């Protein structure tokens, strides 16, 4: 047992592997938030008038709102005036090839173990890497253009495709939605825009690597993905952030729209700085993610592996409006040290014969607090709706917590809704069994945790699954109390 405890401390005490800061001069707005800041921001981004108006509307709404306090997390009040709302790497050039990219940047990615070069060659992934707030390198654009797929930064889309942006921006997450989404609507810095035309199967896995870099800069990403009738796309989002002392606010908004027969698969690996042993310095990750299954037979699938951030507040949701549409949510959330996660999903069944599946795996170690919070709502119109939810929690220390808050609201008797949840400790007898067969405790724990999360990890695209496994190992292996 004492051996186990040692390994636990060894592993839970592991330094954040990706903690370094790249020294690139950033072009930032001074801290503070006012209508002027928003005007300035909009001007820097050379946005058309309609965008500025939308931002200002959101800002005015935000002033009247109150920060939500219902989540099962604790943090000191955020000073929204102390945040700089824009930061861009100074060399803002559109590169033709990777050779032209600032080598320091490339080096950063190399340290992260996800070099662009390799991705380009091996994985066949088009990478729109967001370094802080501005897209700096985009690959495989030609290939995508051939199929008519639009994959660009949202700032570019605002200028180049105003009709699409006007039509869809805020259509799933309106600017009045919630405190953090409204803030994002007012000050979003950059993000990704994807449009898949009718009957096109996107030839590549689309991927954006986010990276918060400049100190003291809130990052407000905005992602909008539209899959037109009969199309399909798989989108990957992965994040790491360098070590720093000040808490950083990240309030992103992701909107997905799937038309008739369209499919969107959205995968996330989130590994931002979780804070030091005292919980100091981690990222606040307050994200609004929502997908709308607009047409018949559409499908939206969320997969997330959440290992980072000091506080996670995130509920990727599906509105199942089209008949026979499908929503899926697969999640692994891991909290260690003083990390707190309040995450889950909402499945709103509106259309007939809509189906949803929720698989959530929570792993708590150290002083981590992990909450699943979810809603399954079956409206009167959702004849024959079907939901299955499973929320399992694994506890690794006697100081951590695992909590579940599922809400189920059923207004149609033909609906079939099932929810089950279990909470248990990592099996000592399983570890013992492995030990007996010459498998070290840490390897055994790795195996058990991977096994526990397998249902979710299997949903990830191949390249991501590998990284996810590695992340889990770094954060958890050996964590048994």
């Amino acid at each position, binding site marked *: 047992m004492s051996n186990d405890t040692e390994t636990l401390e060894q592993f839970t005490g592991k330094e954040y592997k990706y903690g370094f800061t790249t020294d690139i001069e950033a072009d930032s707005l001074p801290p503070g938030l006012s209508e002027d800041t928003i005007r300035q921001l909009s001007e820097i981004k050379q946005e058309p008038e309609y965008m500025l108006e939308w931002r200002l509307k959101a800002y005015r709404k935000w002033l009247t709102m109150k920060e939500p306090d219902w989540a099962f997390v604790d943090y000191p009040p955020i000073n929204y005036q102390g945040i700089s709302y824009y930061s861009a790497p100074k060399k803002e050039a559109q590169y033709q090839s990777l050779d032209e990219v600032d080598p320091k940047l490339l080096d950063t990615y190399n340290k992260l173990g996800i070099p662009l070069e390799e991705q380009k060659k091996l994985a066949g992934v088009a990478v729109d890497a967001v370094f802080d707030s501005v897209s700096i390198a985009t690959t495989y654009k030609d290939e995508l253009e051939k199929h008519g797929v639009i994959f660009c930064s949202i700032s570019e889309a605002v200028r180049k495709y105003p009709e699409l942006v006007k039509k869809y921006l805020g259509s799933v997450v309106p600017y009045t939605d919630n405190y953090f989404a409204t803030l994002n609507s007012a000050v979003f810095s950059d993000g990704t825009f994807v449009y898949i035309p009718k009957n096109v199967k996107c030839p590549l896995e689309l991927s954006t690597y986010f990276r918060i870099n400049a100190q003291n800069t809130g990052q407000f990403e905005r992602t909008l993905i539209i899959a037109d009738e009969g199309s399909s796309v798989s989108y990957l989002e992965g994040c790491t952030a360098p070590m720093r002392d000040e808490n950083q606010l990240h309030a992103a908004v992701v909107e997905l729209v799937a038309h008739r027969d369209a499919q969107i698969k959205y995968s996330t690996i989130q590994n931002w700085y979780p804070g030091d042993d005292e919980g100091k310095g981690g990222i606040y990750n307050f994200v609004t993610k929502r997908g709308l299954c607009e047409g018949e037979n559409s499908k939206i699938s969320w997969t997330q592996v959440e290992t980072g951030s000091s506080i996670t507040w995130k509920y990727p949701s599906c509105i199942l409006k089209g008949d026979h549409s499908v929503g899926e949510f697969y999640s692994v959330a891991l909290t260690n040290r003083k990390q707190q996660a309040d995450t889950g999903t909402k499945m709103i069944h509106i259309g007939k014969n809509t189906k949803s599946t929720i698989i959530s795996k929570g792993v708590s170690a150290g002083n981590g607090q992990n909450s699943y919070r979810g809603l399954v709502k079956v409206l009167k119109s959702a004849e024959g709706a079907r939901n299955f939810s499973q929320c399992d929690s694994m506890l690794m220390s006697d100081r951590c917590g*695992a909590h579940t*808050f599922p809400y189920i609201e*059923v207004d*149609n*008797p033909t609906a079939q809704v099932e*929810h089950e949840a279990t909470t248990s400790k990592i099996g000592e007898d399983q570890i013992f069994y492995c030990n007996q067969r010459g498998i070290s405790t840490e390897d055994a724990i790795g195996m058990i945790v991977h096994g526990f999360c397998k249902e979710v990890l299997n949903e990830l695209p191949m390249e991501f699954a590998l990284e996810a496994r590695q992340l889990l190992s770094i954060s958890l292996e050996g964590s048994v109390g």
Partner: protein
Amino acid sequence: MTEQTQTQKTDMAPPLLAPWCQAHFDTQQSNLNGLSGGAFSAVRQEAFKKFLELGFPQAHLLEDWKYTSLKEMARTDFSMSSEIEVSSELKKIFKDFTDFDAYHNFCFLNGSFVSELNTEQEIPAGITLCTIREALHSEDKELKKRFEDSIGKVAVTDANALVALNTGLLQDGIYLHVPKDTKLPKPVRILFAASGSKMATVSFPRVLVVMEPGASASVVQEFCSLGTEVTFSNVVSEFIVSDNAKFENTIIQEEGSDRYHFNHVAVQQGATSYFKNATFSFGGKIVRNEIAPTLNGSGSDTHMFGLSVLNGDQHVDNFTVLDHAVPSCESNEQYKGIYDDKSKGVFSGTIIVREDAQKTNAIQSNQGLLLSDTASLSTKPQLKIWADDVKCTHGATVGQIDKDALFYLQSRGIKKREAMGLLIRAFAGDITREVSQEGLRSYLEDAITEKLSQ
């Protein structure tokens, strides 16, 4: 992160109050003249003050009341009645109980004790079984002190406005004290009748049970309604189940479908104690059953069962908070509901496992059966776990009658209606089976069949 089950939001509107609250409090104060200096009087005043601060729970302000609104109830002008008119109907309901003679029977009308229906009680020596009024006025100083020391100790008024209101306006009820290693051979059955004969009437009954170490007893609380006017029963039960003690409580709620009912059961359990509660809800317009056991001694065992059989536009909210405060306890919680017409079921069950409560084993399940297009169910099973060496599971399902099972029965020549009845009764059987008194079990099964045939 607070553990309080009811946290009123800070920036709330003024508390929702009804004018009758203050008036009834003043009357109650003068009714209990001579007791004003007593220890209980202070508890009463403190509790009422708390209620005025909190006001009636409001659905839009309190997460715990999200699905149940008391707005309409609070608007009704309720009066309190001390008139005791023993109608033949009341007599019939009182006598018409299964195995009548096998119980210690008590009857309360609108919260006041009906002495006319009191039968000679043969109570084993050492056991106290009396009305709360008797306990408060008792010549026996020790008994009085014992009562005053226990009342209000388990059902805390801090965050629960309706418990505070009950404590503040408490009329009468039953006080049961079973000394060390003693068994009360006959179960206690208490009939609480709510009668709105001339006007809307509110009542505040209370039950206090103290089980000394090794004691054992069981209680059945039955709620019925008379008259045509609306009634509101605000009931609080407090159970102290000491080490090795065994206690079983059954609540049968059969008030009319235009009545309001609030029921709070607070339990403190000692080491290796056993507590079982079963709540059956058949009636009421808006019914809220709360149960909050705290497991304070290791090795204790808690079982909670609930069944709602509803039709019309009835609304029953089962709200449970089970607090595992110490290691090595087991709990088993199972709530089921059958919802027809426009009825609505709510279930909110929280299991808390504190940091020290290692080796906890907790099971919770909630199953709902919707029989009509307009019935609905909202369920919220929650786990808050701070210990690691635990086994906790919860499950919730909502659905309709299994079509395959129905087809199977029909293909064997059983009429559809009959087959449905069979399946529904089997569904309910998981809960009725848990009632250990045999006569009561079949009484409940009959009540279910009758309710389903409506």
